[in-house]
């Protein structure tokens, strides 16, 4: 059962999953780091990205347009969510923030279930990436390779936004000390809105990019949310590099364990998280202080 090609192919799968998790987790972690709100509806954002892209694809038959439409739709949804609901929860206890985002997540999932039913929907990969690529030592689905590339580009874009723009500087400063940023005369609330939009978009983008790999169901975001939490705990809350490192680690653990017995994938993931919590309670690349 365990052969070299098999192992290598699982490592590639892990890379693709890990890259996706890294992107989704980055969205979750910058929202939490900046706004102090853990968005339990983040998995639903991932799911909605897939469905929005699916709808766009039905109308345009263009994968690129589907990706753009899906991402923009989720970004707008995120902005709307922040303006209408989340904004009123900044000064309420963490538990309330968790409860309201959890409830919103359920509403989103059930709404999508109502519109599209529980049946799975398919989005075909773009023509350019269809088929199988011969890597010399093994054959591998082309689109999965492409996913790694696409997500890497998206992470790069996020990196540029976070580390090379004025907005990014404010966001990173806000993660360190949002009170200070506020008192410097920067309108944090507008920044919060934009950050929530970007964070949601990261999940939505991942949702549509991932759609051709799996089939879409309304519950697709639930598992992803759990995996994202593990990624963030491993990497460190509020840390962008931590989300990437954690994502890759989690992706590889899930894939490699699945090769032996899929039932143990979560057990191993949880074991890794426990290890990190014991050895480095603030995550591999997390900073002490943010709680």
């Amino acid at each position, binding site marked *: 059962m365990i052969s070299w090609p098999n192992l290598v192919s699982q490592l590639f799968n892990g890379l693709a999953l890990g890259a996706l998790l890294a992107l989704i987790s980055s969205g979750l972690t910058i929202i939490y780091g900046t706004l102090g709100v853990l968005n339990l509806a983040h998995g639903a954002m991932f799911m909605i990205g897939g469905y929005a892209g699916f709808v766009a694809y039905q109308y345009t038959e263009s994968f690129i347009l589907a990706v753009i439409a899906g991402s923009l739709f989720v970004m707008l949804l995120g902005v709307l969510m922040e303006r209408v609901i989340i904004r009123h929860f900044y000064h309420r206890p*963490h538990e*309330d923030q968790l409860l309201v985002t959890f409830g919103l997540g*359920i*509403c989103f999932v059930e709404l999508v279930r*109502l519109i599209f039913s529980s049946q799975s929907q398919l989005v075909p990969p773009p023509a350019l990436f269809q088929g199988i690529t011969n890597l010399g030592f093994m054959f591998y689905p082309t689109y999965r390779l492409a996913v790694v590339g696409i997500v890497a580009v998206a992470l790069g874009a996020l990196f540029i936004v976070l580390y090379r723009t004025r907005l990014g500087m404010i966001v990173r400063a806000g993660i360190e000390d949002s009170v200070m940023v506020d008192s410097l005369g920067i309108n944090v609330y507008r920044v919060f809105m934009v950050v929530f939009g970007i964070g949601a978009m990261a999940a939505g983008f991942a949702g549509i990019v991932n759609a051709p790999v799996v089939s879409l169901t309304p519950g697709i975001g639930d598992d992803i949310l759990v995996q994202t*939490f593990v990624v963030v705990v491993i990497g460190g809350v509020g840390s962008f590099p931590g989300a990437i490192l954690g994502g890759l680690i989690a992706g590889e653990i899930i894939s490699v364990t699945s090769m032996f017995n899929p039932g143990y994938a979560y*057990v191993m993931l949880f074991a890794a998280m426990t290890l990190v919590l014991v050895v480095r309670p603030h995550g591999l690349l997390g900073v002490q202080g943010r709680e």
Partner: protein
Amino acid sequence: MLKQRPFLIEALTAIGLIAAPLVLPHLGFAPNTVNRILVWGLFGLGFDILFGFTGLLSFGQSAFYGTGGFVAAYLLTRAGFGNVLGALIIGMIAAAATGYLIGLIALRRTGIYFAMITVAIAEVFFFVEFNPLSDFTGGENGLPGVPTPSFDLGFTSIHFTNGWSLYQFIALCYFVGVVIALRIVRSPVGAILSAIRDNPLRATAVGHNIHGYKLTAFVIAAAYAGFAGGLLGVLQAFMPPDAFTFDTSGQLVMQTAIGGRGTLFGPLVGATVWLFLQDFLQSALGLGAAWKLVLGVVFVLLVCFLRGGIIGGLADLYRLVSGKRKRMDAEMEQEAADAEATLQPPPAPMQAKEVAHPAYSGPILKATGLTKRYGGLVANSDIDFSVNQGELRGIIGPNGAGKSTFFKMLTCEIAPSSGQIVFEGRDITGLKVTEVCQLGLTKSYQVNQLFTGLTVRENLTIAALAELRGKFRLDLFRTLAGVKGLTEQVAHTLALVNLTRRADTPVSELAYGEKRRLEIGLALATSPRLLLLDEPLAGMSPRERLETVKLLKSIARGRTMIIIDHDMDSLFELAERVTVLQEGRVLVSGTPEEIKANAAVQEAYLGGVHGEIAA
């Protein structure tokens, strides 16, 4: 709300449970629905102690629900175990043990980390049940054939079969669950759990091992979950695998929030609403699968606008209707009483806790070479400091001199970069703030650290409990009134800080000066032998200052105190010796007269302004 007349709530619960089979059928409730509501309600009792009382929101309760359920079901179906109640209890113990182990991991972090970890736990248990343990749990088939309980009483045997017959058994379990939960909530442990929810930092500082108490709450919640899980199997004659799903945890959380957290009965009310709406929306309104969407929207609206859930909302409404008048009368009365109180002689000073080793006669506190660096910034540098028994020492220094940092090191809130702290001859460097408080050294904070959701009396109770019970004790079934000396100590502290008339006022309604006095009272209620006060006079009006100075003088009798303040006049009046800190170092120590006359001190405070003006 939970401490009115004794046994009132227990009696009402019993009446409600007895009346239910007579009333509910007329309202269209099937016995099976009622039984399911009770199982959710029992499950929720433990969860509410964890979430509503302790403030720990766990999304992982399904793990313990499933553990208890499957252990009990396995014993009854596969292992040939005949005693249903026994199996339920073994399941409960298994769930509690699992809860203990999981709690050790999950409680390493608080807040959102805790929530995320519990989500992961729930998911792991689900997969473990389905895969590695499917031989024991039946995998996706679950365990069919769980028997219902029967009891042989010798002369007759009772068999609870199904419907209203089984209801009697489940209702009895629920009743016992309520009685136990009420005992826990009213015990000293229950009081401390509320304090942890309110202000974990202060709960630690007054000397409670909050990690231990959190773990206790976690295990209690797991035990309740385990028992309820077992009951689910009995109720359905089948242990369903979906007991372990994350949705189960989510439903519990939502039902608790809908019904009202921190009320114990919230989960029951929430489950009633949930199951009723589910039936009603699905069949009566023909919404089909959309029922969950409607419930989700209801839930979000409740969280947004009615934080206390249904029970909380009703309680607010009741208070609004009945309370307004009463309150105005009470306030008038209070003002008159306050005016009277100022005429009364001050109460006798409070005794400090007994010395551990009376033979010791050296300085009560001795710090040598104390240094604290934050990166490149040196907050305290090589401070040598010694205070004698019974002394009242003042510390002054310009802003940024490192006074508060120095205090934080003395009470072990932060660890020094180097140096040593000796309290009553014992090296306390590196101990935890809780242990140091237990030894008899505590401080009142510069910025109030009160339990703002509790009343004045409850605040002082929390602090006094730490002294009377030690840092951790599992007296889950003792009443607060049963703690020896508690009432006296709280009453005495109330009198000392002149808050007797305000004892049952919530902290959030106190005036600033009163809050400052309570802040001192919290430190005082732990009966410290060495009391540090960080700017006790800050922000007070001149009149309040006079009163507080009087208060400080009266509590200084029989104990050692160190006071930081910027109010020189008051401090020079109070202190026997004064230490001046500047830029993290001891500038000079001496009597108030020496300090006033010291040129270096004048220089430090006036910052060489003379020179500049001259130039």
